[in-house]
């Protein structure tokens, strides 16, 4: 879900995704490269991401991922799910504290 969300902002390459996740979560979340790339390829195979070769900011060729229509829909479903889940968890935590 995180990967989809980040890709949803703009087409981005794998390194960018890793950096972005680290920045946004303020170093709380660190994505292992060992699992990032297999995940990207799996998402691409499922048709949620589309990979295109383009020029990176450094001038070198890099593979940029962008969200497909199916991916956008998947992201919506998953964020809705997450919202429900996190709301429920928060609610339970609050009850326990009181």
């Amino acid at each position, binding site marked *: 879900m995180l990967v989809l969300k980040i890709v949803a902002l703009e087409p981005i390459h*794998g390194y960018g995704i890793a950096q972005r996740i680290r920045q946004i979560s303020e170093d709380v979340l660190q994505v*292992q*490269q060992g699992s990032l790339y*297999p995940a990207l390829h799996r998402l691409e195979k499922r048709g949620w991401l589309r990979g295109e070769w383009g020029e990176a900011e450094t001038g070198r060729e890099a593979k940029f991922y962008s969200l497909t229509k199916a991916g956008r829909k998947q992201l919506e479903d998953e964020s809705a799910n997450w919202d429900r889940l996190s709301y429920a968890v928060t609610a339970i935590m609050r009850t326990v504290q009181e």
Partner: protein
Amino acid sequence: MWLRKRTGDAQLDRELRYHFDSLVRDSIAAGVPPDEARRRARLEFGGLAQITEECRDARGRWLDDFGRDLRYTARSLRRSPGFLVVSVLSLALGVGANTAIFSLMNALMLRSLPVREPQRLVQITRVDAHGKPLNVSWQLYQYFRDHLKLISAATAEQDARPVIVVGGADEVVSAAFVSGYHYRVLGVEPVAGRLLEPGDNTLASSSAAVISYGYWLHRFGLNPGALGKTFTIEGHSNLFTIVGVTPPQYHGTVLGNDPDITVPAAMMLSADERNDPTLNNFKMLGRLAPGATRQQANAELEVLFRAFQQRVAATLPEQDRPSYLQERAAVLSGMNGFDPLRDRYSEALAVLMGVVALVLLLVCANLSGLLLARAASRKREISIRLAIGAGRERLVRQFLTESFVLAALGGSAGLLLARWFSKAIVTTMANGDVVTLSTAPDWRVLSFTAVISLLACVLAGLAPGLHALRASVERGLRQSRSGGHQRLGRFLLIAQLSISMVLVTGAALFSATLVKLYSVDRGFRTQGVLTFSLRTSGPCPSERCRTAAATLLDSLNHLPGVVSASAVDVLPISGSLWARDIEVEGYTFSAGENQTAAFNAIAPKYFATVETPLLRGREFDSHDTSTARKVAVVNESFARSFFGAASPLGLMVTCRQLRYEIVGVVADAKYTDVKQPLIRTMYIPWTQRTEEEPTDFNFLARATGGDPVRLAPTLEKLIREADPALRLSTTAAWSAVADRTIVTERMMAALGSFFGLVALIVACLGIFGVMAFRVSRRVNEIGVRMALGASRTGIAKLVLREAVAMLLAGCLPARRAAGVDPMTALRSE
């Protein structure tokens, strides 16, 4: 596939390298020294190869792996050509035999006519007691055509092999005489010109004719100029003009008989055929009316046929009525056309299908044994692959790939072999006749071949594959020689031996049946006798023709190289029978007793020519003319059944108001075919059989020795000398004609022996392979035995003892099989 994988891998590599480089660059930018930056990046990144593998997994790697497995298999098979050749060869034999028999069954039973909506096509037919179709008369055809409401259209046809004259040359062709609605009922479209139409079926002196694509190809080289060509049919005055060509996939409606020419029936009918409602010479096809089912049409037909029978029975002589009224008619499926071969060979083919299935099973066992031996020798390799982390499922896939490659190779080779096999079988079945049976592989045959070759390979490959996997890593690496393959290997070998023993025993039984048929006392000798028939070219009045035929026999009897010559109406053991109801002087038939006797008309010197001994009285001679007193010669069975031991000479037999005096008794002889029991038979002189012309008779000439067919050229000359209007029609050795009545038995014996031989070869290969393998597995043990003082002969005995023990185990099922007579099913008639 290769290309795709390469670029895929390269792209992945580039993508990961970019990430790695970016990490390094950012670290350097943050002030870390380059070497340290690279080290950190590597730490953070983890194993590049590992990530690559995982990405491949994520992408799905089945196709990639399959390609890899294929290449690996090709390499490893090339390393063991012996295994490759033996396994592909035995697979090809097994698959080829199965495909051949299946394509015959397909051609005979499954393939439907290439016409519009074949499932709506029905045979409208009289049926025998077993429900098998019989011909109908022209009268009955017209009656059904006009009265059946649930049949929208109907057609009748008759097959013939007439002589036609095209462009001054005469040739024998296969022909169909059809009603004008024929092609409309079938829904066949021409490839050139037009087909016959209802308007063509008139009694005009000139008419349209249609030729087949095959005839167009062979006779006219597909030249469009063939349309408009004219021809005549011998014996008929009509002139026919070719107006069209039937499509290449259309081979007529009667299986095995592909009509070269098709002409309207109207002018080809004899007066008898047109008017006699009991002269059944036609096959009738119809198309169900929209919405009607075959059952409904059948119900309607039964009622109509009853009415027709009542009307006709009133016109018949009293004694013929009961049997006529017992006749039945039915509407049968016409989807596959008419099929005289199906009835004759379906049982034989079913038995053969069983035989070849056994051959395939044998091949499976054989292949399994070979694969097992191979797997054992590859145990080390497998253990290494397991040890370095190959999944078991992955290894099974590798084994299956190997099976797949073998199946593909064996299957294709089998397909080629099958073409040749089925051609040979069709030739045996045809046995001198012209049978066009298309055994070209269609989708059914191809999928059958694919399925059985795959099935065979998977079956054969599964057991050894799983077995090999069960071997643990360490044990395999230690190269231990005490494998658990022994039991499976021995089981496979025994299975092979049993199956091949069963097949060989079966072959022996089939051959024994054939030998019995040949050694049966026929009552005459077919060897060394030439049979031939005459035809007329141009007008030849009956009286002149008879004189000419007598002259011909006379000159033949004086020809050097000919022992004796004669003629007979129905050639014995050619499959035909002529029987009639009789009355016998001094004998009263009890109620319900069978009153029939077989009849035959013969020329003088017949018994001398066929070498049937004359027991009493005399043969016919030139004094028994058409105007002389009617005489008959009877056989022993006839004399015994009516007169016991008393002499029948001088007694009278009445048949159809004609009284014959018995003047001679001959020994019994077979009539229809060698399988039928002897029947009481009565012979009359050919001169007193006025209904038939000499062209209806079979002439016989016993040669002094050697092949009687060599007489044929001299015959031509003699025949023309006897009368310029006479021609030689057909010639054949009598023994060859007689062979045609036991085609099934000959085919079963030949094919049974062939498959038995194949089974033996395959089993020998298997035994050789497995024994060699077992010995190689026991090298250690043998070495120890020899070190302990065992002699060479002792070791040889050890191995032989094992082989013999397995052989004996294999013989048990064969003994049981020998107790069954596979011909029982075929002799059901």
